[in-house]
């Protein structure tokens, strides 16, 4: 299980509540004091905003309470575009990040004799660049006529067929997702490196003796053993993709023609640029519920699909 997995790992050394004797004598007052700092911050900056959002979303036309804002959303084509794009963000980001992250981590951990730390570090560097800088760099890189990508097309003699990736409705979303994947892949690589490094060497050697080598070893031994890391990365990647905001806002403002709008950016446009806070709050509630459902489904799938192989691997030990 990855260190930052969201669920108590089945095989961790910690025991489930109730199984262990309570050795510590901390009274209710002391316990409350330990919870207090986190509770105060949580209540102020998380709970209060959630409640005021739900409240605001129920303020309809002329201040009457109701679900009018949700009805408006159902009729609003831009809302549906934004919802679809949010799902595309999750799917495409995850597939590319998991694929690149796992593949590169395998190369680093299993096929490199030296220099592992260097690759892990260099690949991670995009993670530490602030999005406002990234947006300006990639906007320039993608730009027709003077950007680096155009330079490449020009050099290949293809200047006339250069695609304006950010300026074409069908490609704008994908072009920004690529930037997101570029930034986050290094993080996925590092997490898979950690997962692979934690696999018992004896287990790998045993597998090799059994004849599992090369791709077979990766597929049947390493990939299942990284299950915990994968589940955690899928959940975190989902949340990150749904939340991505500055890149879209700074690169296309959701355009052209709302083609790259996501729920996160549409909340911003309706609330801040169009001054329709109740409507924006309703979309925010939709996004929150969507994230909740996706994460629950991902956990459900992980439980159903990954469990057998993980038991297998434990039996092997």
């Amino acid at each position, binding site marked *: 299980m990855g260190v930052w997995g969201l669920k108590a790992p089945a095989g961790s050394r910690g025991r489930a509540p109730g199984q262990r004797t309570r050795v510590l004598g901390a009274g209710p007052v002391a316990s409350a004091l330990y919870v207090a700092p986190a509770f105060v911050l949580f209540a102020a900056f998380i709970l209060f905003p959630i409640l005021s959002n739900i409240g605001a979303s129920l303020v309809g*036309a002329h201040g009457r309470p109701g679900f009018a804002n949700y009805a408006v959303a159902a009729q609003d084509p*831009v809302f549906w575009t934004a919802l679809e794009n949010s799902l595309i963000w999750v799917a495409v980001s995850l597939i590319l990040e998991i694929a690149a992250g796992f593949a590169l981590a395998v190369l680093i951990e299993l096929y490199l004799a030296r220099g592992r730390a260097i690759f892990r570090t260099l690949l991670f560097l995009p993670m530490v660049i602030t999005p406002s800088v990234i947006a300006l760099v990639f*906007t320039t890189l*993608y*730009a*027709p*006529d*003077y950007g680096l990508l155009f330079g490449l097309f020009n050099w290949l003699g293809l200047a006339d067929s*250069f695609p*304006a*990736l*950010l*300026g*074409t*409705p069908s490609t*704008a979303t994908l072009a920004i997702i690529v930037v997101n994947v570029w930034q986050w892949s290094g993080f996925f690589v590092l997490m898979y490196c950690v997962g692979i490094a934690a696999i018992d060497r004896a287990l790998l050697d045993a597998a090799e003796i059994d004849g599992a080598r090369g791709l077979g070893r990766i597929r049947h031994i390493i990939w299942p053993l990284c299950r915990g890391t994968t589940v955690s990365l899928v959940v975190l990647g989902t949340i990150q993709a749904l939340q991505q905001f500055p890149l879209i*806002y700074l690169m*296309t*403002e959701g*355009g*052209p*023609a*709302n*083609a790259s709008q996501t729920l996160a950016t549409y909340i*911003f*446009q309706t609330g*801040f*640029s*169009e*001054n*329709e806070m109740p409507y924006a709050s309703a979309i925010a509630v939709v996004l929150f519920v969507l994230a909740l459902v996706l994460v629950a489904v991902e956990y459900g799938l992980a439980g159903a699909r990954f469990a057998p192989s993980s038991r297998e691997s434990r039996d092997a030990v």
Partner: protein
Amino acid sequence: MLRFLREAAFGLAGWLALTATAAAAPVTVTLWSWSPVAPTMAAMAAAIEKAHPDIRIDATIQPHTAYFTAIKAAQASGTLPDLIGLPPGAYTQEYRPDLEPLDAIAADSWGADWQKNFAPALLTQARLGNPKGDTQFYMLPQEAEVLNLWYSRAAFARAGIAAPPANFDELVADVAKLRKAGFIGFYQGGGTGLFDNWVFMQIAAQTDLADLLAAENGAAVWDKPGMLAAAKVWEQLFTRRVVQPGALSALQYPTGANLFAAGRVGMISLGSWWLQETHLSTNPALATMSGYGKFFFPALREGGSASPTLGGVDIGWGITKNAAKSPAVEAATKIVLKELISGAGEQVALDQLNDLPAFNGMQPSAPLSPHLKALYDTYIQELATANPHQIGNPVVFNTLAANLQAVGAGTKTPEAAMQAVQKVAAAQAAN
């Protein structure tokens, strides 16, 4: 606990010390805006502080979207600064509940007949969207602007073009010539909704000025034949390759301004504020504007005339109710407002040609080069008769921009786009 007490004691002592010196310390007026650009604003603040040593100006200038995000949050939380920069219409109306009425303040500053100092069109725009019966001003204009197209003289010369295009077919032909000579013929920052709307409106001013002006004021007339005709011309900007490839992802600022300043662009839609480059840039072609000329959107038909002028208030200032937090700040804020509009502040802005002065009789303090003077004087004349250039409703504004982008991208017909705008505008008008 002991530490807390000690800190509290220190805090109290500090507070007492502050109050004791407050009488001698200068009064600070806070001001936020997106315009004028930060270096100009800094110079303006310095000039006002010099004229009033007892006043400090804490000015924050941010790009357009960031600024409006910040004041929106500040409005919700009651933390607006003393003075905020505002465009007329929807934005001013949005903040009206938090703004002081300015008529009495204006009368104090410039006399009972203060309104004679501003062109009537600017005053009308400043009150755009007031509820019926409310004749108060909540913002007073500092700077005005005129929309137009600019061209690069050097690029035109290299492409063998003698004069700016007189009609649409010439525009198409000139763009082709410029492209052949290695320039971007007509740069459009189509990713910036404001400039999509402004180009469309310059076209619509030619096809159906009456409906355009009504639409700006909130009437749902976007599906009228004249408006549709304008949308069809907008479509031709893309289908006849007038605007550059990838225009819909391009930004007018900073990219378009950059490329135009660097001499890579033949034509671009900007306005009177382009003159500010004379002070922001080190490039000689810009410092005197000798390399640049202006024209209006050319006649759509041969022998016709170019688009009528659109323009009006660029930026004005509102005093927020927060300024009344202390009499000293309130008094200082009024002084700063006056200096921004007709005093040391506007003088600096004008000397840097940030845009056109809204206050009558203001003059640049140093003589302008002949070409620059000709440009400036023409602008001042045009401003006097300009038609308003602001769409009042922000939802309609965004819908228009998105639909124009869809037409440009070929995903919507002009008919479908204008019907979509019409539908939204009608719903907004009914609200």
